[in-house]
């Protein structure tokens, strides 16, 4: 993030994002914007770019559903949009409430013209993120890195909090 000039992370947290968000909170050069709903992150990062800065949105796959109409904004402006999505509802999911948006995330984003970078191994995360960020900010595209549940580890229903 630092090497890519991304100074702001807008987020509704997810368990899989916890280590990243902890680092962001500790980093004096990174601003964390806690949202009330994920779609605000689309507006805020579009506004950041319009003001000459770079931001991204870190969210769970369920939150992608809250962003659908909001994506109109960067699409219509031809503005960059970078989303880091931790997936639920796929690899070993025990909570069926997570399945509809988990399974819908990539087809819905693709339908809206967002370029998806699905990642299924830990080694792929950094290169996929760099590739997506470069495409977002240099080609002014909408890009989403989808971190598979296989990478993060499925939650053990009944033992962990959902």
């Amino acid at each position: 993030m630092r090497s890519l000039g991304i100074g702001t992370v807008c987020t509704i947290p997810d368990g899989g994002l916890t280590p990243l968000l902890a680092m962001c909170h500790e980093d004096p050069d990174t601003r964390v914007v806690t949202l009330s709903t994920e779609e605000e992150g689309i507006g805020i990062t579009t506004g950041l770019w319009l003001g000459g800065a770079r931001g991204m949105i870190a969210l769970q796959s369920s939150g992608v559903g809250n962003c659908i109409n909001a994506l109109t904004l960067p699409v219509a402006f031809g503005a960059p949009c970078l989303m880091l999505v931790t997936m639920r509802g796929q690899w070993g999911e025990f909570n069926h409430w997570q399945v509809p948006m988990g399974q819908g995330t990539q087809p819905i984003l693709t339908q809206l013209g967002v370029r998806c970078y699905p990642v299924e191994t830990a080694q792929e995360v950094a290169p996929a993120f760099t590739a997506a960020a470069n495409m977002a900010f240099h080609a002014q595209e909408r890009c989403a890195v989808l971190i598979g549940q296989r990478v993060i580890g499925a939650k053990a229903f009944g033992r962990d909090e959902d």
Partner: protein
Amino acid sequence: MACSMTSNYLDRRDFTAAVLSGRGDALVVPSLGAPTWDCAAAGLTAEALHSWGGMGLALATALGVALAQPDRRVLCLNGDGEMMMGLGTLAVVGDQAPSNLAILVLDNEHFGETGGQPGLARSTDLCAIAEGAGIPRTMTVTAMEQVPALTDMLFHRPGPCFATSKIALGDYPLTMPEKHGPSIAAAFRATATNS
């Protein structure tokens, strides 16, 4: 400042022209529909981010601009329907507390673009919600005589600040600004970044 519900109504074009004439070099982020037409009618071009869609996001977008340009005043000119759709964003503004962000709601208590259906702001105290979200400076505007105090707050006092104005429903000549999104974005971005 105290807020109260009221039944007085301002002429939106006279009111917005008077407010915007005091903007200096502020950037303006209007919500889609009437506030965007008001900006166009007041002669704003590249300094306004004219909006044709993405309802509910004007304040979030204005917040992003304000965070990116902390030395530049940013005014979000929001319709009441759009403000109701994004009430949670007031909490994000209160949390980030950008001193250069001002919000003015143009509240006609109706969905004016879609046939004048009644809206929720007529029974909602938006200033109370803004104050509850941690935005300390608020004002309810019901008379043109308040415009000098309003522009002083919006453009010169430390933000974030929030005002709501009670305006009349009415038919106004449509003043259409640029619609092509990349053109709007390029012009606004050049103005915002002085490039």
